[in-house]
């Protein structure tokens, strides 16, 4: 019989190739961010780091001005994306945990109707109602505002479903005991339900942070002012139609800055991330 280490060789080979292929685009972006625009534009970029790394990142962050691009400081975009991702993640969690608590712990007229209403939003993603939603936004004067960028994305059927599911698993005895001890609904929420839900909250937060950071269509519709732009939109605008002789060094430096936060979140908080991903979808 072949020793186990050798039998597994093809498996390791396939997985290693996949790992390398997955990482290659990001490696190339890292290399691209260390060369000058002319070298890249001639199609002569080597596969090893170049000498201009610090200049490129400093330039991208502070002015993003190159030979072809008259950009906008990427640090503004990064700050916008961070604010947006945090606001969406926190807002979604607060709003959906409150509504899930109402649906799970109270009996009141129209309860199931409201629940169905929240559930139905799953069938109405922004993608299928672009024009009328834009009209609502401009009627309310929310174009180019931070509220316009974040509040409409805070309604979440998945969050409500997840927390409702969790609240259903809290034992009746616990609720009885709390009631006998004189706890009202708000006290029970604050002192018992919320602390019990904290692992669910953490997992959902990781997923929603990435969701918020990576938004594309919504910021594209709602922001026209460059100072309001997110990093993802900012990079795509920098690239434009993707001419050979553009400032690829700045584009690649900005791309690395754009992908670093969500990738770090996934790698460093992997346990939460996996829990969140499987929970929100399953």
């Amino acid at each position, binding site marked *: 019989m072949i020793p186990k280490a050798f039998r*597994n060789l093809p*498996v390791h080979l396939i*997985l290693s190739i*996949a*790992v390398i292929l*997955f990482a290659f685009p*990001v490696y190339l*972006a890292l290399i*691209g961010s260390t060369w000058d625009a002319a070298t890249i*534009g*001639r*199609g002569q*970029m080597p*596969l090893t780091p170049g000498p201009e790394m610090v200049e490129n990142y400093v330039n991208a962050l502070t002015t993003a001005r190159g030979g072809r691009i008259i950009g906008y400081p990427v640090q503004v975009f990064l700050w916008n994306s961070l604010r947006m991702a945090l606001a969406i993640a926190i807002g979604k969690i607060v*709003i959906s945990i*409150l509504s899930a608590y*109402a*649906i799970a*712990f*109270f009996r*009141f007229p129209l309860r199931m109707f409201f629940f169905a209403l*929240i559930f139905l*939003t799953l*069938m*109405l*993603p922004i*993608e*299928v*109602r*672009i*024009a*009328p*939603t*834009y009209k609502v936004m401009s009627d309310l004067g929310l174009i180019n505002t931070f509220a316009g960028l974040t*509040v*409409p994305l805070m309604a979440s059927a998945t969050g*409500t479903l997840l927390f409702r599911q969790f609240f*259903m698993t809290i034992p*009746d005895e616990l609720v*009885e005991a709390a009631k006998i001890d004189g706890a009202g*609904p708000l006290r029970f929420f604050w002192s018992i339900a919320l602390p019990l839900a904290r692992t669910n909250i953490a997992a959902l937060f990781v997923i929603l942070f990435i969701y918020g*950071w*990576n938004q*594309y*269509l919504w910021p594209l*519709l709602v922001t026209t002012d460059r100072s309001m732009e997110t990093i*993802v939109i900012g990079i*795509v605008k920098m*690239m434009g*139609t*993707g001419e*050979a002789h553009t400032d690829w060094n700045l584009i690649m430096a900005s791309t690395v800055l754009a992908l670093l936060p969500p*990738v770090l*979140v*996934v790698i460093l908080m*992997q346990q939460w*991330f*996996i829990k969140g*991903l*499987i929970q929100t979808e399953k």
Partner: protein
Amino acid sequence: MQRRVIFNNRILPYLLLLPQLVITIIFFFWPASQAIYQSVLRQDPFGLRTTFVYLDNFREVLSDPLYIESLRVTIVFSVAVTLFVMAVALLLAVMADRQIRGAQTYRTLLLWPYALAPAVAAVLWVFIFHPAIGIFGKVLAANFQWDYKLNGTHALLLIILAASWKQIAHNFLFFLAGLQSVPTAIVEAAMIDGASSWKLFRTILFPLISPTTFYLLTINLVFAFFDTFGVIHALTGGGPGRATTTLMYKVYMDGYVNLNLGQSAAQSVILMLIVSVLVWMQFRFMEGKVHYT
């Protein structure tokens, strides 16, 4: 379904629901109802008169060769992305599921692309496949006249690749979770009976993870239909010609860029129906109805 022990309060539950409902009604149901309303109306060119036209807008949209063309592109694109993603993800998951050294590390190293925005993935792939400066693009351009900006097939191939990358990471995680929930006793019994790896996979593992497979099938279709907007917008802008204009991209162009409201509303309603069917399928499969044990 409801808890047995509950709190009694007449006003509090409504207050708790209020923020969610306000946002839902203003930003979801009101615009959606506007889309449905406009889809049966037509405005004259000066915007002075609107007339009720029954389903004329739908008839027009569905008989428009450009719409049919974008439907074709959408089907080719979605089927290609879904099959490619699931085949690669399943292969990798089966490999990583084996009792091998470093399985955890492989999982981390295959998972992180999920964190990338589709549009960022598009920028990264342009940098590789650009016909003049891309490291692979140059070689392909020299040998096969590769140019995704001029050749529709090339453009479609590139957006399929860029869109699939991130989704493979996602599917990999779910397949792996599915495989790891298959009881070891069944796998060991099959191995004692002398089943080969292939036979084990085909007759035991694959049927047992079929709920995951069907679930991922719908998730991937939703992803390919809607979430790939960023890839297309950043990479090809729907071109060259209309080679990469999907239904979703066309709604965006007609409704937001070209402001053709009636037709765009009809297209929106059609997309709503498609999402509804897909979400319904997703929840059916989630309940584990597809299971062959």
